């Protein structure tokens, strides 16, 4: 059942991302997705495999559910949120959208925990929330730098 719900969340994010009015350009969306993917893959590997703070189920469907969440749902959620940032009228609105994004990702983690897809040992939801907030912050900062490259390129040309 956990696999079914995690796949549903991945599908939902994919559909939302495909159908939404994107405020980032095609290349910016790719950049956000890849940066979130690379950070998340490395972070989860270090927490789960190196530090043994949590464990991933070795059951094939549950393990696949973890990989789907890690490689599709999470980066797409970050990409959707950063698209919504562009229309946020204030800093408070950006914070609100980040909170919603983090809550959605925490919901996915709660599902994974409930269905034994992952098992937290020294890791907990609190750490996960801090990580997710920092992830949004880092990706947003890198996107800002990435956007400036285009302006610099034009000026240089």
């Amino acid at each position, binding site marked *: 059942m956990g696999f079914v719900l995690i796949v549903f969340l991945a599908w939902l994010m994919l559909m939302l991302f495909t159908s939404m009015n994107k405020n980032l*350009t095609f*290349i910016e969306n790719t950049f956000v997705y890849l940066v979130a993917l690379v950070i998340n893959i490395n972070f989860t590997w270090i927490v789960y495999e190196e530090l043994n703070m949590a464990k991933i189920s*070795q059951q094939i469907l549950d393990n696949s559910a973890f990989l789907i969440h890690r*490689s599709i749902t999470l980066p797409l959620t970050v990409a959707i949120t950063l698209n919504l940032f562009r229309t946020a009228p204030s800093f408070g609105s950006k914070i609100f959208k980040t909170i919603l994004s983090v809550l959605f990702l925490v919901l996915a983690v709660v599902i994974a925990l409930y269905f034994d897809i992952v098992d937290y040992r020294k890791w907990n939801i609190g750490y996960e929330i801090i990580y997710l907030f920092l992830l949004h912050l880092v990706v947003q900062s890198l996107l800002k730098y990435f956007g400036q490259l285009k302006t610099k*390129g034009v000026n240089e040309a």
Partner: protein
Amino acid sequence: MKLWEDFGGNELFLLLTAAAAYLVYFLLIRRPDKLAKQIRILSLLWGMSIGILYDFTIGGGRTDFYKINDLNNYEVTDVLYYLLFAPFGYFFFYFYEKMKIGKKTFIIYVLVWALSGVFFQWVLTAAGIITLQKEYRIAHSFPIFLLTQTLTGVYIQVLKSKEQLSAGE
């Protein structure tokens, strides 16, 4: 995480290969036909992401078809291995644009890259940087390279319809 299990021939080979790849990259970005800055960063990120995605999906975890360097665990020299993928991302994008790859040349371009990828993996295996496990064979990487590079080519085609790839200086 360890710095390395034992700094030996494979680490040295990796270091030299990465140095050579980055040297070629830095020479290419000095050329007037270099790619635009955003495309450059994206191509580097693309190359690195593909390597990381595959290695942490089939090269580690439950499947664990191969190990990088001396351990199944993360070593600092593994980071060097992933950084090695980045300039190849640039080379793929750069030559795609430079050689004006279109409908007629797409298949050849992807096929040459996929075969080169298999050859390069054979070299890395022979150098002891990659150790295949659980009955995984180098030939199994061919469909992976084929799929990855076809998707990359399709992505570049879509990107070209939205952005100018070359710096145009």
